[in-house]
């Protein structure tokens, strides 16, 4: 299969190069927003006579090469006034275009990608795009617009409950999502344990979520790519916008450094609910903040540079006994260079880290862990002609993992200082990706990523008999840690383990008629980093571990098929997709695995596998007073860890078991209705099969306490989850010339106050001594209010 795809790709590539006979010219340029010069991503440039077209890339650049001639060009982007022009293409033309926001469509941007006719032709499938304004319209708990909460309303995306960090795509785990903020990897996407995500929606321009058919330029995670771009900042005039909510407030300033050439953006966000706690005589503190910065400068027509940064922290403090701080930092320098009007390049130099600190004064120790990486990416996009584009590039990442360090907090502490052994790794990838329009009906995209991973020398590594760090005790039928027989020492330049993987990617779109198409895709991906987490949902405390001598990389194969249709003049669109995926080497944990402060993590993990399959349905109404979407996902997500030999039991007796985010049915209905110029109503309704859980199948008494006895893992389910949220947006009448613009959002989360179970706990009642089942529900009905302004 792998070879077949490779040879097919090579053959197609060469046959394409030989077709260049006629005289051709290139039209290229940057498309930006007229008032701010903010570049626009995914703008369609269509040539209706020839049926050809292109879209702007992540930096607003487009290029198309056509035979000499006179063409009419349509430039369209939802929410902006469409431009139609006639172009005489008898030489190479550079044409920068400014689009004007169309007033009647203001705030009407719903998922933009896939709704234009062009996207029906585009082989890219399984992708959803959301703009900042869509995200802000979705009612959320406590009124804070949130990117992660918004994407979980899309088909194929869910999470492991209301208070869970991260998100799950097509039955994959949260650590299998590659989250990129301006090309830099974000390791923890959540604030306050998942109640909020780390992305400030005001600073975000555009995001796209790839669930399948993932292009070869992305790699390193197996389930999805969430690619987020921050705004560059307004290079025409100074602007301020912000919002005040009940939990957090935001402020964002942007403006020119040099008019039309350079701009800055500085955004901050912080929660402040903790400031009121002392009023209730609570000396505990829980807050988060984040800062987004970006400087952009246009050196000349061919060169742009960007410097962007992100810094976020969560802080919890209880009296003097406990303090917890964690968060991501990212610093990123990028250089866009146009080699020619057909060859666009971007160089990124990125530093990012994740820091975790826990100070437990009551037990007199301090814990620090983290991950640091240096990342260099060089991406080129070659717009060869109107039917063929080539993207290629390379990516190298150097990692340093600090699995943890313990230090006593006071001199009299009984804790000895202890440093877990640092781990080092080097990840590299080379890729090439082609977009190939074979005929008017058929478009292909095919590529190959060659990834490699080197686990570099560390101070000490355990050696085990038979290379088995975990042994199975046949008498007691349990897995136990093996005793190391020896240790090995390495130099930093040594390679302890190395892995190479070829990752073919392929997708095709066949247009049935002008309104509908079918698409299919296959992708193989590898993941060399693993988040060690044996809980339902990852926590900020969890540490990442690299593949190595005892931990193998995860390998994914995914197949997807879809049907796409626009109807009623593009007012409605329908997407139906089905997928099947398998993942090899999914880490599983032996019972009682200690994942924190463990120098020999290999002693508590086993290699398993995972699979997921499903059907996704998305019906959207994109225009008019009422807009919204209905998403339905029918899916199954399971994992299995069998014994390594027939005598071993495996995890869960070697049987397949549901992942904690397996939800058979997942329905979300999201809509907005514009009542009049001042009022708009937004609402979402969710219904989901209850999350898998393990309930006891009996009890016994041991050492004077009641012990629930558990059977098969995740065999039971919590009650079905459903809720309705409503919010009202009020925009007072504002005169056109007035600079100060504002609106209010009044929201109610879970309006019928359903007590959705986050978990059910089975234990002995403290008052009666009898066993009981206790339901924990986090959010009942939660009203919210926020005030948002723009200057």
């Amino acid at each position, binding site marked *: 299969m792998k070879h077949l795809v490779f040879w097919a790709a090579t053959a197609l590539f060469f046959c394409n190069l030989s077709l260049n006979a006629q005289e051709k010219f290139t039209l290229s340029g940057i498309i930006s927003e007229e008032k701010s010069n903010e570049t626009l991503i995914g703008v369609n440039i269509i040539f209706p006579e020839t049926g050809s077209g292109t879209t702007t890339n992540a930096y607003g650049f487009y290029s198309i090469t056509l035979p000499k001639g006179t063409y009419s060009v349509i430039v369209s982007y939802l929410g902006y006034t469409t431009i139609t022009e006639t172009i005489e293409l008898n030489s190479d033309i550079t044409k920068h275009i400014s689009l004007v926001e169309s007033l009647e469509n203001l705030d009407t941007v719903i998922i933009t990608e896939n709704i234009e006719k062009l996207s029906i032709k585009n082989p890219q499938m399984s992708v959803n795009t959301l703009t900042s304004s869509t995200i802000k319209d979705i009612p959320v708990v406590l009124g804070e617009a949130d990117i992660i909460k918004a994407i979980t309303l899309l088909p194929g995306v869910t999470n*492991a409950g209301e*208070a*869970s960090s991260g998100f799950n795509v097509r039955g994959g785990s949260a650590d299998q999502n590659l989250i990129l903020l301006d090309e830099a990897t974000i390791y923890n996407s959540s604030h306050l*344990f998942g*109640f909020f995500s780390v992305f400030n929606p005001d600073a975000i321009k555009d995001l796209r979520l790839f669930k399948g058919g993932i292009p070869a330029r992305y790699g390193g995670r197996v389930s999805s790519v969430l690619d987020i771009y921050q705004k560059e900042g307004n290079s025409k005039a100074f602007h301020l916008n912000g919002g005040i909510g009940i939990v957090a407030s935001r402020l964002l300033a942007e403006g020119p450094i040099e008019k039309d050439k350079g701009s800055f953006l500085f955004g901050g966000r912080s929660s402040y609910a903790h400031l009121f706690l002392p009023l209730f005589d609570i*000396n*505990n503190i829980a807050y988060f903040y984040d800062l987004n910065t970006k400087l952009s400068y246009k050196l000349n027509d061919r060169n742009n540079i960007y410097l962007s940064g992100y810094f976020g922290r969560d802080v919890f403090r209880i*009296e003097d*006994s406990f303090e917890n701080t964690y968060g991501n930092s990212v610093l990123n320098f990028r250089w866009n260079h146009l080699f020619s009007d057909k060859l666009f390049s971007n160089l990124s130099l990125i530093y990012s880290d994740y820091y975790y600190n*826990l100070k437990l004064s*009551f037990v007199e*120790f301090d814990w620090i862990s983290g991950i640091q990486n240096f990342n260099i990416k060089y991406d080129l996009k070659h717009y060869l002609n109107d039917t063929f584009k080539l993207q290629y590039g390379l990516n190298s990442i150097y990692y340093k993992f600090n699995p943890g360090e*313990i230090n006593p907090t006071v001199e009299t502490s009984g*804790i*000895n200082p202890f440093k877990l052994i640092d781990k080092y790794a080097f990840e590299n990838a080379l890729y090439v990706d082609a977009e190939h329009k074979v005929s008017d009906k058929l478009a292909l995209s095919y590529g190959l990523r060659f990834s490699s991973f080197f686990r570099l020398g560390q101070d000490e590594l355990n050696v085990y008999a038979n290379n088995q760090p975990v042994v199975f005790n046949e*008498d*007691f039928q*349990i897995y136990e840690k093996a005793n190391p027989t020896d240790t090995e020492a390495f130099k930093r330049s040594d390679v302890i383990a190395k892995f190479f993987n070829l990752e073919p990617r392929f997708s095709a779109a066949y247009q049935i008629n002008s309104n509908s198409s079918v698409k299919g895709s296959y992708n193989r991906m590898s993941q060399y980093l693993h988040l060690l987490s*044996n*809980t*339902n949902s990852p*926590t900020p*405390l969890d540490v990442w571990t690299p593949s190595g001598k005892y931990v193998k990389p995860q390998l994914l194969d995914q197949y997807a098929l879809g049907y796409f249709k626009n109807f009623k003049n593009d007012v409605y669109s329908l997407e139906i997709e089905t997928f099947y995926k398998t993942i090899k080497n999914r880490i599983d944990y032996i019972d*009682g695995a200690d994942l*924190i*402060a463990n120098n020999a993590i290999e002693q508590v993990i086993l290699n398993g596998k995972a699979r997921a399959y499903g059907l996704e349905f998305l019906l959207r109404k994109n225009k008019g007073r009422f807009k919204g979407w209905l998403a339905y996902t029918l899916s199954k997500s399971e994992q299995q860890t069998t014994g390594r030999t027939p005598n071993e039991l495996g995890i869960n007796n070697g049987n397949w078991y549901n992942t904690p985010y397996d939800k058979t049915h997942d329905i979300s209905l999201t809509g907005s209705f514009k009542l009049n110029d001042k009022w708009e109503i937004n609402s979402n309704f969710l219904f989901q099969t209850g999350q898998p859980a*393990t*309930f006891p*199948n*009996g*009890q*016994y*008494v*041991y*050492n004077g*306490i009641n*012990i*629930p*006895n*558990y*059977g098969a*893992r995740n065999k039971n389910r919590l009650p079905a989850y459903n809720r309705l949220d409503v919010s009202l947006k009020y925009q007072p009448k504002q005169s056109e010339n007035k600079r100060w613009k504002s609106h209010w959002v009044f929201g109610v989360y879970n309006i019928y106050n359903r*007590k959705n179970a*986050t*978990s*059910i*706990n*089975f*234990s002995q*009642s403290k008052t009666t001594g*009898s*066993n*009981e*089942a*206790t*339901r*924990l*529900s*986090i959010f*009942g009905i939660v009203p919210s209010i926020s005030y948002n302004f723009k200057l």
Partner: protein
Amino acid sequence: MKQLLFILLINTLLLSCEDVIQVDLETAETRMVIDASLNWEKGTNGNMQQIKLSLTAPFFDDNIPPATGAIVTVTDTNNNTFNFIEDGTTGIYNNNMFIPVINGEYTLSIIYENDRYLATETLKPVTPIEFIEQKNDGGFAGDEIEIKAFYTDPKDIENFYLFEFRKPALNTINLEVYDDEFTDGNQIFAFYSDENLSSGDLLEIISYGISSRTYNYLNILLQQTDNESGDPFEAQPATVRGNCINVTNPNNYPLGYFRVSETHIFSYVVD
């Protein structure tokens, strides 16, 4: 630790709600439960020992059926056999001739309904509890009494501890296990915090020396019985297998554990 963070967060936001609900549960086939803990209290002769045998029951039942009519013996490496005689039909089996030896190896044998169960364990010594520290404004809300029971870990050997905090007046038991990975050779403490403790209450603090395997067993068991189990930050629960095996019919494995420990009891009256 994770649960602690979770509770903190939930409480801070003041939004969560807990209520007792009805849940229909399946009941698995009945299994033998071995609650065999031989404890040698420092300063006593350790002759009097007790083993409890019972059966699993449906989760919401208030009665736990005893396993009666079993033949229970413990043997040591000096060819002594200690017969445990049932008290009526209570499932409680007693022996008053037991000879404890530090680091001595003991084998438990039970014959019940034609199945023979076996387990072997070593009597682990324990270091004494030295003193208690009390803090009256502990816990997240500052309304709990925190108790620290100090002991000195013997240097350069791996030690594992079970601590029991028992309130005889209320018949409540709290268990904690500790290892010495990060505290080897130091004076360190076992920690207990309780909002229902008040001045004048008697608290029995018992330390037990346990083996590495016992530590692992209890660690998993306690995670699953913890009041906070089942929350999103808890490890996935599973049947906890102990060190007793059914040699007649291995598939009909028993639950519970055979533990042999030296213990130290420290009685403390809350200030």
